[in-house]
């Protein structure tokens, strides 16, 4: 299976290659698939892409993905507005939503601080979070940044910045994945899970 280097089909394949996780072979297979598909099926895909670009944006409050000024979560009157859970990216927010384990609001930082790469507080949405806390109504901020150097640096920084405003700042626990044998856990995870133990 080969696609000529020029022509409309090759142009489509080149667009697919730019997508995450798509290599040359898959891109060509997808391009062929689109060519052979019924017109209305292929055009529905084109319309869906166009609609996403035209109507999906970021929530002005939490920076979650949204179709209006505020995302569905920020609009939902049943959510607990006193708790805000902080994540690096919308994908983490959606993983937590899938778990149904949290009923408050979110704040997406769109990144994390990096002592190694020199990413500082002005490059993530940290001031916006501080602003939300300053406006009042929030009593607890739960920092759910990744357990990496970047996530840790971000968590310490946010704690330093937010605590003076009188809110309770907490960090999600590290631990052994459910269903795993403890003996296979690595030393860092084990140490952290013992430190983060809770009373029964």
């Amino acid at each position, binding site marked *: 299976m080969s696609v000529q280097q020029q022509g409309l089909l090759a142009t489509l394949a080149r667009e697919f290659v730019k997508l995450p996780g798509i290599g040359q072979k898959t891109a060509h297979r997808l391009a062929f698939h689109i060519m052979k598909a019924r017109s209305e099926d292929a055009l529905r895909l084109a319309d869906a892409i166009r609609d996403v670009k035209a109507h999906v944006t970021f929530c002005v409050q939490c920076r979650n993905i949204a179709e209006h000024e505020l995302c569905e979560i920020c609009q939902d009157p049943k959510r607990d507005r006193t708790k805000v859970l902080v994540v690096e990216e919308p994908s983490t927010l959606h993983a937590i939503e899938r778990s149904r384990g949290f009923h408050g609001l979110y704040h997406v930082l769109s990144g994390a601080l990096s002592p*190694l790469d020199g990413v500082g507080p002005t490059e993530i949405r940290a001031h916006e979070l501080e602003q939300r806390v300053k406006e009042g109504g929030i009593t607890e901020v739960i920092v759910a940044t990744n357990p990496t150097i970047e996530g840790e640096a971000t968590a310490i920084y946010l704690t330093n910045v937010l605590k003076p405003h009188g809110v309770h700042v907490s960090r999600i626990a590290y631990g052994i994945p459910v269903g795993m044998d403890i003996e296979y856990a690595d030393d860092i*995870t084990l140490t952290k899970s013992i430190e983060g133990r809770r009373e029964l």
Partner: protein
Amino acid sequence: MPLWKTEAITLHSRRWGEADRIVTLYTLKLGKVRGVARGARRMNSQFGAGLEPFGHVEVTFFEKGQDALVRISQVDVRESFLRLRESLAQMSAAARLVNIVSALSADRDAGTRIFSTLLNGLQSLQDKCDPVLTSMIVQIQILGHTGFRPQTDHCASCNNPYALQAARFCAVSGGLLCRHCEGQSHGQSLPMSPGSVAFIQQARRLPFPAATRLKAVGQIRREVEAAIEAYIMEVIGRQLPAMDFLAAESHPPSYGVANDQRPFPPHPMENNIEVSG
């Protein structure tokens, strides 16, 4: 398909693809090596926390054809330097140490002194030694081990060893300049008192942990810090993240990343948010 097993310190770790990581290691046997750790970001990854930056590990990897990236197959943690992650100051200083080794060392050029200096530096930072002072000492030593020793024994331009009273440090020349040469050079130079010269010389010679007992306060600290920063910038040709840029201020000043280099586009509301203090 040569297989390697060696001690290593993780300098850098970057997300790659769906669940992989690309890591830069400073290995004892091979020097700086870049490799792929497949599936390292998955919850059940066999690498676990073994490839986080600063970690001292025992690593097994193999080379694949002509590929510049090795394939990492196993990691056992010797010392995770977990306590370094509890303070922004220690973390930023440790970041400077791995960044300087990464920037100054060549690929696959083993340097046992670079390895042990870095390891000692991370240990000292974890033991709560003064982060800025420790990183200055380690940087002076690493500069020496990589062939960039700042010249403090004689004038970096005319080699005159006897004319260094009231000398100045010139980053472009790579060391102290005597009065005469300094007057003729067009490069910028920094003041350097005899105490600062003595500090740099001792920091270079003293082994760890004795080196961490060196003290620098006031003028000496300021002079040495400014000279080393300027010299490193000259040697590697770019600015490394400052050692205190994550200091716990609520509104730190911006530190020189141009807007168009930001990883994320500015939010439309950004201009409306007031920044006080």
